[in-house]
């Protein structure tokens, strides 16, 4: 018991959960507003990691000292751009078609990004090591080791989550987002351009996934074009766990997911890979609306 349930694992779990949370928020926001499981969302995360990779390597090759904040801003921007492009080209034309069409299109977009990146000669399908953007330091307290990476991961995601919560709860755009998620036609009749609200949603979701991509690059410094698939699925699982469409739910679900995965992996690596789905299935069986989700009675 003592070996598995220790504080060190808990810290690692929170660190992983922070990264999941940033991805999962994009899933939950997009789902909340356009009722689409955006399968390509995990790939936006991959795009963020590659954007950072190229920016940092470009700077290193020219011996330029580049501020970390700039790297974040540029890579988040790249992911946001891809997310908005996917929305504009692939999802928007299907807005009033059966929901399944958009879901399948999202699979197509996901596949496109993964294979396009691995087909591009300057990227390729193989692993690349992410450059050292921040020098690692380890702090030791008692027998617990905390890396400054963990602090960065938790801090960056905390700042972004606070920003998002403020945006949704307190601003006019946030209010419009909540209205659009409830009833698109009614929102349009209020004079709201719902397409711009949806675009903003993809922008934020994409940027957050991009941030998660850089954090993952810093923390687990191996990137490749398919790196988004599993974290994407797990982050979606976390969003469902918390109650899809519910922002605090996505955060809660992500931390639960990160922590349980870390503990399970410490026990057995196979278990670590399977735990996400095991949790998902158990939750859906006993609480289909997720932990913080609300029951919506189907209208008959």
């Amino acid at each position, binding site marked *: 018991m003592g070996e598995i349930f220790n504080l060190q694992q808990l810290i690692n779990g929170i660190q992983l959960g922070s990264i999941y949370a940033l991805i999962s928020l994009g899933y939950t926001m997009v789902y909340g507003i356009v009722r689409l499981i955006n399968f390509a969302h995990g790939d936006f995360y991959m795009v963020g990691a590659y954007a950072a990779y190229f920016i940092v390597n470009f700077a290193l090759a020219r011996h330029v000292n580049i501020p970390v904040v700039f790297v974040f801003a540029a890579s988040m921007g790249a992911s946001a751009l891809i997310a908005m492009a996917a929305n504009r080209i692939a999802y928007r034309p299907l807005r009033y078609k059966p929901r399944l069409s958009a879901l399948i299109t999202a699979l197509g977009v996901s596949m496109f990004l993964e294979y396009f990146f691995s087909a591009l000669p300057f990227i390729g399908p193989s692993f690349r090591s992410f450059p050292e953007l921040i020098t690692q330091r380890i702090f030791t307290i008692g027998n617990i080791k905390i890396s400054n990476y963990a602090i960065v991961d938790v801090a960056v995601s905390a700042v972004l989550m606070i920003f998002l919560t403020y945006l949704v709860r307190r601003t006019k755009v946030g209010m419009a987002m*909540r209205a659009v998620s409830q009833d698109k036609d009614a929102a349009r*009749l209020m*004079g709201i351009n719902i397409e711009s609200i949806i675009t903003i949603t993809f922008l934020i979701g994409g940027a957050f996934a991009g941030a998660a991509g850089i954090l993952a690059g810093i923390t687990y410094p191996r990137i490749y074009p398919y790196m988004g698939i599993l974290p994407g699925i797990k982050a979606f699982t976390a969003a469902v766990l918390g109650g899809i469409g519910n922002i605090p739910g996505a955060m809660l679900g992500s931390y639960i997911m990160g922590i349980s995965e870390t503990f399970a992996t410490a026990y057995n690596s196979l278990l670590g890979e399977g735990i996400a789905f095991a949790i998902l299935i158990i939750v859906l069986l006993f609480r289909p609306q997720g932990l913080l989700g609300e029951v919506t009675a189907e209208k008959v």
Partner: protein
Amino acid sequence: MLKVSNLEVSYGAIKAIKDISFEVKDGQIATLIGANGAGKTTTLRTISGLNRVSSGHIFFKDTNITNMEPHRIVNLGISHVPEGRRIFATLTVMENLELAAWTIKDKNVKSERYDLVFSIFPRLKERFKQLAGTLSGGEQQMLSVARALMTGGSLMLLDEPSMGLSPILVDEIFDVIQKINKQGTTILLVEQNARKALEVADYAYVLEVGTIALQGSARELKEDQRVKEAYLGA
């Protein structure tokens, strides 16, 4: 004020509206009556841009608004109270009204609108901080009308405002409609309750499976034998 000419709307292969033309004059209450499936709701949704026009034109105050985006049509001055209220249930009454004021930049205009809304719907002021979903059915319908009033259109489209309301509340909502009209808003009313609609309206159109079958002043139509038989249950 509103002129619809040779309008045609399809859902996939099915024509919901085939070639209808009508107009609403400034200051009037005009009404569209007809059975379910006749295309009344579709007509309103098409005017406010929620449905696409297959052919024909819609002019609002000499502006061609055919196939314009809904938010731009709202900006031009058409407000729409949709069928089934469609209030934002998990937002407060205040947030519902704030959203309706989305396009208003001027603070003074906004507070004038609030004054107007509260003078007509004093109940909503009492319930300002409450979640809209917890209002009663009648109050929700009032909120839906208040929201449309807040967007400040000079033409208001009302889709079945009496639906699902008890007879007492039906009377109340028709009083409100007349009050809004007296304050200068032109109204296009779609109603199942033809008797009530003809009581308040100036001019009426009878819609039958996608076409205008009859039209005339409300007073004339109330006495029309065909209308009596089919819609008033004489």
